[in-house]
């Protein structure tokens, strides 16, 4: 049984169902969403095991029975399944967390409907093999996230959402324009077919223009530095579970994944594109962390760190060597884990204490032990302290920089890492250690479901380090092989169509 369509059908059906019945039966939206996310998580692991047992590591589904350049196809390869596991893992833990957290807001069913639609969009982008279809699902995820950022309907949230929506729409227009130019040139929309057609036509003068359009479009979605202005507003304004989803997976699946898939597998990268990617990555890495150090708003600080960490991912992928891509993807996975955890921690503090200002916290360790310990794990992980996963992925990226002779970038990556450490020492010092304020004596730990989801994420922070061991490293390396294989993807996929 081919599982590919289920990744779209299940969340989409759940969203429609929740919007029908959620208004009348309050608990049903909780139950439906959690069950759906749980099934999706199981399904992605099941797909992972299927993919490993197929010799070509490729699963193709022809929608409507039309053979691909004519119809739309779904393509799941190692990279897609890597992203599917990441997205659905975070989504499941976030829904568990939301059950209690979202009680603070009105109209919970709207939250769950939008959440499931956003998940539909991300899954759709990841599994599609068609360029225009990717755009459509990208828009679903984006529009759902615009609305989710404004979920609290306070003035700051609306303002952030407006900014995000305008920037996001401009980005989408750039992407759509790029697709139009590509369609005119190749007369097809299927990605594999397009790659073959581009190869057949020889070095195309149109590609630099389209690459720039896509870099601007997807770069905006991924919040790379010249295009990052919306992120520090939008991510802190959203409710904490949504911040975790946005920073954890949305900017990666819509930005980094889509960009890497198109640039590497459809266009075939050139040295110029790689150096642009590396430069943008390093720039984001440094600018993000410099802006983060001075922040006193906990969630805003985390948002700036998202820019910085996305910089690491793009730097790793931009190196173009197998080791670099491997490090970049591994860091992508790790970052979704620990950044989601940190945002959930910040949400827990908002839930119990009601503030995001680091000055107003202090000494929360004794009252909120689970939150404090999980956030300690996440902080050490993001700062790159040895036993945790963040250390290994950063190490691999730095090694890869040195290996391909980019000593400057390696140096800046180390500098960024040190500054990250400093910034998170500040967070730990002001939020959890120190003396407990007088007003904070009646602070309580958050409900059990929220604790559980934070604890699971913290455990994954530790367990994910084992992915560097040869026995488990296949998960990341096979995904990296898809990208470093370049246009090999086109031959494999079009072979599978027949």
């Amino acid at each position, binding site marked *: 049984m081919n599982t590919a369509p289920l990744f779209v059908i299940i969340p989409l059906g759940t969203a429609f169902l929740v919007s029908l019945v959620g208004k009348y039966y309050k608990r049903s939206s909780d139950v439906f969403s959690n069950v759906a996310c749980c099934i999706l998580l199981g399904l992605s692991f099941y797909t992972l095991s299927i993919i490993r047992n197929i010799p070509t590591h490729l699963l193709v589904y022809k929608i409507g029975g039309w053979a691909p350049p004519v119809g739309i196809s779904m393509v799941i390869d190692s990279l897609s399944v890597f992203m599917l596991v990441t997205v659905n893992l975070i989504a499941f833990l976030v829904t568990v967390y939301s059950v209690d957290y979202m009680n603070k807001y009105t109209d919970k069913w709207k939250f769950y409907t939008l959440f499931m639609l956003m998940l539909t969009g991300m899954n759709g982008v990841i599994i599609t093999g068609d360029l*225009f279809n990717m755009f*459509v699902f990208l*828009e679903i995820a984006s*529009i759902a996230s*615009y*609305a989710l950022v*404004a979920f609290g*309907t306070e*003035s*700051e949230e*609306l*303002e*952030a*959402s*407006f*900014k995000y*929506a*305008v920037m996001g*729409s*401009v980005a*989408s*227009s750039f992407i*759509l*324009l790029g697709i*139009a*130019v590509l*369609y*005119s040139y190749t007369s097809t*929309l299927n990605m594999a077919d397009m790659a073959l057609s581009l190869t057949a036509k020889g070095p195309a003068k149109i590609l630099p223009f389209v690459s720039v359009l896509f870099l601007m479009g997807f770069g905006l979605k991924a919040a790379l530095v010249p295009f990052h*202005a919306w992120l*520090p*507003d939008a991510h802190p*304004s959203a409710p904490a579970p949504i911040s975790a989803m946005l920073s954890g997976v949305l900017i990666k699946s819509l930005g980094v994944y889509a960009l890497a898939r198109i640039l590497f597998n459809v266009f075939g990268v050139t040295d110029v594109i790689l150096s642009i990617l590396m430069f943008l990555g390093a720039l984001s890495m440094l600018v993000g962390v410099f802006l983060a150090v001075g922040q006193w708003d906990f969630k805003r600080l985390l948002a700036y760190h998202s820019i910085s960490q996305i910089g690491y991912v793009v730097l790793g992928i931009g190196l173009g060597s197998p080791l670099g891509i491997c490090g970049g993807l591994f860091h992508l996975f790790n970052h979704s884990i620990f950044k989601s955890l940190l945002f959930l921690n910040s949400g827990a503090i908002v839930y119990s204490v009601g503030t995001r200002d680091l000055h107003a916290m202090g000494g929360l360790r004794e009252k909120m032990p689970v939150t404090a310990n999980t956030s300690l794990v996440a902080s050490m992980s993001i700062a790159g302290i040895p036993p945790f996963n963040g250390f290994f992925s950063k190490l691999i990226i730095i090694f890869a920089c040195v290996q391909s002779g980019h000593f400057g970038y390696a140096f800046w990556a180390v500098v960024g890492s040190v500054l990250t450490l400093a910034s998170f020492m500040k967070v730990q010092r002001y939020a959890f250690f120190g003396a407990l304020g007088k007003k904070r004596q009646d602070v309580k730990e958050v409900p059990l479901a929220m604790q559980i989801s934070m604890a699971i994420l913290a455990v994954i922070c530790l367990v994910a380090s084992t992915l560097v061991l040869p026995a488990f490293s296949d998960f990341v390396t096979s995904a990296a092989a898809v990208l470093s294989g370049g246009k090999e993807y086109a031959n494999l996929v079009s072979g599978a169509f027949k």
Partner: protein
Amino acid sequence: MAAYFLCLVLFSIGLYCVLRKRNLIKIVVGLGIIEYAVNLFFALVGYRARGRAPILSADQVISNMVDPIPQALVLTAIVIGLAVTALIVAIAIKIYEKYGTFDITKINKLKG
């Protein structure tokens, strides 16, 4: 070629409006112009000289049709544009309700 370029000029006008105007409704107008330009670009790309509309008829044979794919894509893109516009206008009206103005320079609780 000239048609493509004029279409991109239209795109740039919209882009300029979004980047430089300081009024929420003007920004929405700019986004609308960008959408029109992209949709028009798609339709231009699919045109064939002396082509016919891609609708078959029972009593005549049509040989030279324009490309139907861009039309199908634009149909989707128009809907997406409408959806985005509706959402952004709703947010803008709500901002007006909170701040009493559409002027972006007076709406700055958030910084950079």
